């Protein structure tokens, strides 16, 4: 995999990990404002960076969550378990 793509993918992993961790924390601490602000900031950055990644390397989601160029890009490998990280 091209190093630039791998670097962007790693950035997405890091950001989404922060979002996942904050999600679980907020599930049991829904009234705390600081983690919620952090969550919303990460969610915005993640949405933006996913769109940039998908424009360059194809969709991360199917089922209508991401558009595809012609031909249908979803089937294009490598799949996540095939990548040398």
């Amino acid at each position: 995999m091209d190093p630039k793509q791998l670097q962007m993918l790693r950035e997405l992993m890091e950001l989404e990990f922060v979002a996942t961790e904050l999600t679980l924390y907020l599930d049991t601490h829904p009234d705390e404002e600081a983690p919620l602000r952090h969550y919303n900031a990460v969610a915005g950055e993640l949405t933006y960076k996913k769109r940039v990644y998908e424009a360059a390397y194809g969709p991360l989601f199917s089922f209508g969550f991401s558009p595809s160029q012609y031909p249908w890009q979803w089937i294009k490998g490598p799949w996540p378990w095939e990548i040398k990280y």
Partner: protein
Amino acid sequence: MWIYEKKLQYPVRVTKSDIPMAKYLITQYGGPDGELSAAIRYLSQRYTMPTDKSKALLTDIGTEELAHLEIIATMVYQLLKDVPPQQLRRKGLGAQYTQHDHALYPSDANGVPWTAAYIQSTGDPVTDLHEDMAAEQKARTTYDHLISLTDDPGLIDGLRFLREREVVHFQRFGEALNDVQGFMNSKKVF
């Protein structure tokens, strides 16, 4: 509804050819304290949770466990990829090859297939959350054992990530248990 995201939660790096590790790692795919058991356990129990916090937490941790299932599968897949049958046999994976070739199959480290008997879902939220906290500790212990069995720095890095997630899930389940117990005690006041 679930949506698949075409990426791993955490990068998997297999830096050495530690073939026997595939046989041990598979227990976190389809063993009693593995990620499949965890996901099915939480995603089954969530329907009878009494509070919104506990319903959300079981949904979200159950979902994260599916991402962990994929990480373990990727480790096993990459360890076994292109390894010829005779070499698999020499490394203790002859039985695995006989039944499954290079495919992923949910079993424990001894080849025993996954069974729903590994999990419980009682309808009693206090009982279920105690089971969940115990399950996270058992998975954490299994990751400790797996980390002790390999000297591949890439695998160890991924296993440490998964181990840490068990610790965080245990903490969150403890908070959900307090929430559920508070809710149940409040119902008893007339």
